């Protein structure tokens, strides 16, 4: 049973480590999906939101984690 729980924890841990990173990524994806859905002629804009949103999330999350660790 504990082995099964460990496997389930490991599967969840494949994708979720820092909750704020996951939420921010999903937020960017949802925003891009909304733009793609509402403005079918501007799907490239949705792509730009997706790409640059994820790059921004990465930079901000890494720097905030570094600052958090420095302050701890």
């Amino acid at each position, binding site marked *: 049973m504990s082995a099964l729980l460990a496997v389930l924890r490991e599967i969840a841990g494949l994708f979720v480590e820092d909750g704020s990173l996951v939420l921010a990524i999903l937020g960017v994806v949802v925003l891009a999906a909304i733009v793609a859905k509402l403005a079918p002629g501007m*799907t490239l804009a949705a792509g730009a939101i997706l790409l640059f949103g*994820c790059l921004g999330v990465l*930079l901000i999350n890494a720097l905030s984690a570094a600052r958090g660790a420095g302050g701890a």
Partner: protein
Amino acid sequence: MSWTFTSWTVAAPAVSAAFLGSLVEAVEALTIVLAVAMVRGWRPAGLGALAGLALLAAIVLALGPLLDRIPLHLLQLAIGILLLLFGMRWLRKAILRAAGVIPLHDEVSAFAQETNELREQARRHEKRLDWLAGLASFKAVVLEGLEVVFIVIAVGAGRGLLLPASIGAAAACLLVAAAGLVVHRPLARVPENALKFAVGVMLSAFGVFWIGEGLGVPWPGEDLAIVAFAALFLAVALISVALARRPALGTLR
């Protein structure tokens, strides 16, 4: 199937990501299997590892046909989101390790910890130790192998590249197993963080690409966009390392 230049622009990163990602996971699994072998012998270590590989093969065989039934756009979207979550998690951790914010993964210390735990178990449950040792080996192979399976499916399923991605992953696992059999020590000199950094960059680029495809985004340059995305993720990751770096701490090793 005729392989064009654009096919290779997707296949090469997919195979590389599968190979490098599997290399990292195989090194971590090998450390535990070696610890089991050193404490209790190769029989339980080998049997546990083989049982783990059999379970992973069963998971792949069960999932493979299911993937064919999912509409391509939905598959690209779902796998893209999982890839992005997985890739950016690895990339974030590699950035923080490279910047010295969190310590590098140390195979020698992981080996020592596992060996100590097994010796402690030996004192408590001498009769059941072979079984427990085999289970430790099995768990290591399954848990690390799940990441390999995910990477292979994620980078391979969207464009029918499951076979080349599987070959890349299998090559990495065989390489690590052969190296482990030869040196009989954890592969502590493998530049694990640099590998995680590279794989994180590639998987994140694949994730953005697949999500965009799933949303119907007409990426300029089509498949070549993946290379551009990887370059952008690499640039931002390196900038993040420079900005987050602490004096006298980690490296990109």
